[in-house]
């Protein structure tokens, strides 16, 4: 009975966390003199109100599926990847660089090349902390943070000095060749929703198959569940961690596909509103499983789109509310002690001491 109760509870927990986050977040808007109910209506209307809005929600969800996976895969191998931001930056830059340097390659070869470039360059940026962790024992969290800064520096240099768009004052590269561009779906108005969304969903399915249906995936998860036990069973834990980080980086790199080939047609400095960090929230809320990641990415995509209209539609609340809501949701999901208390009715301090 308690077993059943805790199973049901566990599957409801992310929903409850979202609810808690939303309620607290909306109550905060009250402090700004807004009617929380009104704010909620704006959020929902702006995220789902029209075909265009739905298209934008899916457009924002696309990079979040990828960065969510980029956090979830290493997590399954016992690693924490907060480097998705740097990985996606360099992946997107690589896609744009290929498109700028070889502008004459025809469709469909061109986007394939750009996708491969984005995947492998992002993957390389994930490989570095994976390798450093496996071979030198250095902590991947700090290394991925450092690599985020290094990636930002490289991207800034390449954008401003190497591939600079001579016709614009904006920090952006030249446009990629016409053969690289992927088309938008027609049914969502002007929303730049492209096959990159399909690519992200397919990636999630492939990751799911890989992790739960292949030997390599099983070994990878075994390392995450108990490294010494996995080693005893003859699994090369270092190799698994490197693979996990490479795949993660590659998937984060694919964010460049939707942005460079499907939206801007070039690399723009600062195009990402920290998709890499929101990916942490997405993975966490999705319980580090691909299906959960897709669902959570849709929710956060909707939040992102929903809050984007707050600037115009309310007096005092701006789109920054989305950051606050995300933070509150992450905090609610992550509070182990809180859920213990909910679940077992024990006091929350120190995990169940009376």
């Amino acid at each position, binding site marked *: 009975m308690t077993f059943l109760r805790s199973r049901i509870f566990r599957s409801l927990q992310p929903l409850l966390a979202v609810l808690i986050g939303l309620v607290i977040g909306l109550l905060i808007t009250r*402090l700004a003199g807004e009617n929380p109910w009104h704010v909620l209506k704006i959020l929902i209307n702006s995220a789902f109100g029209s075909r265009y809005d739905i298209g934008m929600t899916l457009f924002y969800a696309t990079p979040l599926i990828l960065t969510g996976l980029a956090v979830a895969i290493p997590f399954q191998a016992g690693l924490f990847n907060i480097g998705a931001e740097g990985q996606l930056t360099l992946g997107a830059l690589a896609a744009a660089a290929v498109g700028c340097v070889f502008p004459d390659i025809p469709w469909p070869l061109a986007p394939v090349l750009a996708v491969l470039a984005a995947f492998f360059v992002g993957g390389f940026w994930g490989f570095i902390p994976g390798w450093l962790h496996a071979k030198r024992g250095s902590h991947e969290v700090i290394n991925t943070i450092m690599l985020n800064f290094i990636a930002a*520096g*490289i991207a800034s240099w390449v954008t401003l000095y190497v591939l600079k768009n001579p016709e614009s004052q904006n920090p952006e590269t030249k446009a990629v060749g016409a053969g690289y561009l992927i088309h938008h779906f027609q049914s969502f108005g002007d929303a730049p929703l492209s096959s990159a969304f399909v690519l992200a969903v397919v990636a999630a399915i492939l990751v799911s198959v890989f992790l739960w249906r292949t030997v390599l995936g099983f070994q990878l998860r075994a390392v995450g569940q108990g490294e010494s036990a996995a080693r005893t069973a003859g699994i090369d834990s270092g190799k698994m961690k490197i693979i996990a980080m490479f795949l993660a980086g590659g998937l984060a790199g694919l964010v460049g596909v939707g942005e460079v080939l499907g939206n801007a047609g070039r690399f723009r400095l600062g195009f990402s509103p920290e998709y890499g960090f929101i990916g942490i929230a997405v993975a966490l809320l999705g319980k580090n499983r691909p299906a959960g990641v897709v669902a959570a990415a849709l929710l956060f995509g909707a939040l992102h789109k929903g809050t984007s209209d707050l600037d115009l539609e309310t007096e005092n609340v701006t789109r920054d509310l989305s950051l*606050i809501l995300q933070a509150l949701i992450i905090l609610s999901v992550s509070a182990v*002690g809180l859920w213990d208390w909910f679940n077992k009715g024990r006091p929350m301090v120190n995990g169940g001491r009376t």
Partner: protein
Amino acid sequence: MSDTGFLAILIQMVGSTLRVSTPLLFASLGGLMSERSGVVNIALEGMMLIGAFAAATVAFVTHSPWLGAAAGMGAGLLLAACYGLFVIQLRADQIVAGTAINMLAAGITPFLSKIFFESTGSTPSLPLDDRFQSAPIWIAWILVIVCWAWVNFTPTGVWLRFAGEKPEALQSAGISVIRVRWCAVLASGVLAGLGGASLSIFLASSFSRNMTAGRGFMALAALIFGKWRPGPTAVACLLFGFADALQIRLQGVVLWGTEPVPVQFIQILPYIATVLVLAGAVGKSRAPGALGVAFKKG
């Protein structure tokens, strides 16, 4: 270049290095408190940001940089209390909760500035008299010495180190690990808040959106670079500050050829150095034994 010109540039560089490394010093001392007690603190970034906002706001209203700094410390303390509630009491993952706290700070500061000043970008500019001239530099270096002496030579400093290395041993000696970690995290919030204040009312003249720009993470890097010890950490802050000052100085300067120096490469040097140190290429850096592990009383 003449000798006097070189000397002038040198003095200027020393001055600006000392200035730009001050927020880093405060924040990395904060990080030291928290991390030596066993609590990873990537939330430094958010604590600095909210400290910077509170300091600029209060200094603008009261015309006193000191009250501004106090407000910065208070805001850092509040956010640290929130962080402590989640990672110490509710045993949330420290990296996850830290990331969330950073997001919260990044969202709440423009939210509040919109309410207070009708502007989500920044707080109003402070006149020279309402800002610090050089006091934060002195305070920071005094704190480095105090912190060094305290961690190494006082009984409570030993508690701090044991909470991070062998929490069970500390607990069995009758001292509450939870309480030590709470104090350490709160202290780190105060220090990081002061670091943020020194950014907005000392280096700059107002708060602007996301003005910490990764300095909390940089302070963390300096802490690791300095192997979690006060003296070397302070030196690392100076090095990082120097790289920053150099990068500002060389912005747009043509040293060779016709193109300006790509300052990006100077900017990323501290981060590359930190990666190398962590990889053991420049001396091994060892983290406190129980760093990042939530303590659950048995």
